[in-house]
């Protein structure tokens, strides 16, 4: 992961675009799964979906600033590992809570927004896991914070589209 940050800006941009494509493709692939999982569950309201997105934005934003802080080597390793684990647990809980909202009769924009939310949360979970492994490697942490920033922006766009 640390190697990626050593490339030039053009390469980084290509990687970012590639990452964005993966996220969008992933969101579409996740859609049928979301619909399947939603059978028999309660219908999500616009407010509930917005609330779910706000929570995900909060988690992404917090992960971003904390990982930036770690990149500046300002935390103890026990605190870093512990807090990242708590963040990861919170993301897992949020994914689980979101699964209760997924439902076929929801209007399409809501279902799409939820699909994006779930996919981005899983990406965030992976980034937090990766940061736990990269503790003490500022360049890798910096790259991770950058990717989390993109996740946050995607979530904010999904929220403002509602």
């Amino acid at each position, binding site marked *: 992961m640390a190697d990626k940050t050593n490339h030039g800006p053009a390469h980084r941009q290509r990687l970012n675009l590639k990452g964005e494509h993966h996220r969008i493709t992933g969101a579409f692939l996740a859609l049928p799964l979301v619909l399947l999982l939603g059978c028999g569950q309660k219908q999500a309201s616009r407010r509930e979906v917005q609330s779910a997105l706000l929570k995900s934005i909060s988690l992404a*934003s917090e992960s971003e600033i*904390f990982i930036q802080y770690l990149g500046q*080597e300002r*935390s103890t390793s*026990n*605190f870093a590992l*512990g*807090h990242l684990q708590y963040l990861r647990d*919170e993301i897992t809980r949020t994914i689980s809570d979101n699964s209760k909202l997924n439902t076929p009769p929801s209007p399409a924009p809501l279902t799409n927004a939820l699909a994006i939310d779930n996919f981005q949360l899983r990406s965030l979970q992976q980034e937090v896991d990766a940061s736990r492994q990269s503790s003490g490697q500022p360049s890798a942490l910096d790259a991770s914070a950058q990717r989390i920033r993109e996740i946050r922006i995607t979530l904010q766009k999904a929220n403002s589209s509602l």
Partner: protein
Amino acid sequence: MKKLLGITLGIMTALGGFVDLGQIVFTTQAGALFGYQLLWAIALGTFAIIVYMEMCGRVAVVAHEPVFATVRTRLGNRLGLATLIASNLLNLITCSAELGGVAIIIHLLTGWNERLALIGATIILIGFVLISRFQWIERTFGLSGLLMIVFAVSAVALHPDWHQLARGFVPGLESSGSNRGLLYAYFAVGIFSAMLMEYEVHFYSSGAIEEDWKPKDLGENFMVASLGSILGSLLTVGLLVLGALLFLPRHVFPELLSTAIFAGAYPFAQKAIVFALLGTLACITGAAVETALSGAYNVCQFYDLPWGKNLPRRSAPIYNLGWIGMFAVASIIVLTGLRPLQLVNFSIIFGMAVMPFTYYPILRAAADPKIMGKHVNTRLENVIGTALLVLIILCAISAFPLMILTHAGQP
């Protein structure tokens, strides 16, 4: 020097009450959602707790009536017993939450397994309280809790807008929307409630008797109640400011204890994290001790049984079994897997509902010239006490509906 150390009762009471697990996260959340707009709730809560802490200390010293003796005599046996059960349930839930918080902090400090940290910390705490006199308990937690000052320093280091901050002491919501209004009300009630948690007056009035205060010490009573509460309040303001400066612009809604600690150390380097962790550990541990001891005080005072940390252990068996039992049951509750912050959210709102039944008897006793003699409330004190009691009752009525309507404060 003795008088100076006497302040530690006020500091431990206030830090354990204001800067416990729930308040740390709750206040940071309030700052993250509303900036400085809820500072007035902290100021109002501080004023209310000073008034009632001084009153319960005065009643304890002059009439030798700690809070639960007052509850029994003023509310009668049935309502008094209901209040005792509710208050001790609340103490138990809060003690569980605080012990869970202690385990989290130990994990963040050392990397040790949380469950083992919980069991180890409970055993050490029981041992410490068992061998320590009351004065040493209050001094240990009162003084070590001062490490929390790192939160206030961090808040200042982030350069708050002092003009806007001062405006936060005037109630008012700047943004619109019904949900936003409900959330604002929920957080205002929650902050006010957390600052008036019953166990503060249970512990404070019992502490005044443990310390053998006499009517000539009543001036000290006011100083201890005021200074301790103002210090706790300043740290609470620091937490809210950190939420406003660090989390509000970034759309973070902090839901973890470690997030609030991170905020407390944010402008500084590694040592600040350790200070913030140790300060939080001291306050949360102090709150766990306060709630466990309060549970035992309440039962013994209600049934007029011997109680006190300074009595020989065999002379007060129910009291000693009571607080040890509180610690043991509280740690078992956490070991079942309940999350400390879930527990504490519930305890803040549940605490509000029970609050009138604790504060009303204190006001009645302090206003009774038969038992208070020349130390009875002045007319002004009665007016202020009654106005605050009305406010407490209004908050108690609105607490549960607000919790349901806002999904326990979720934005």
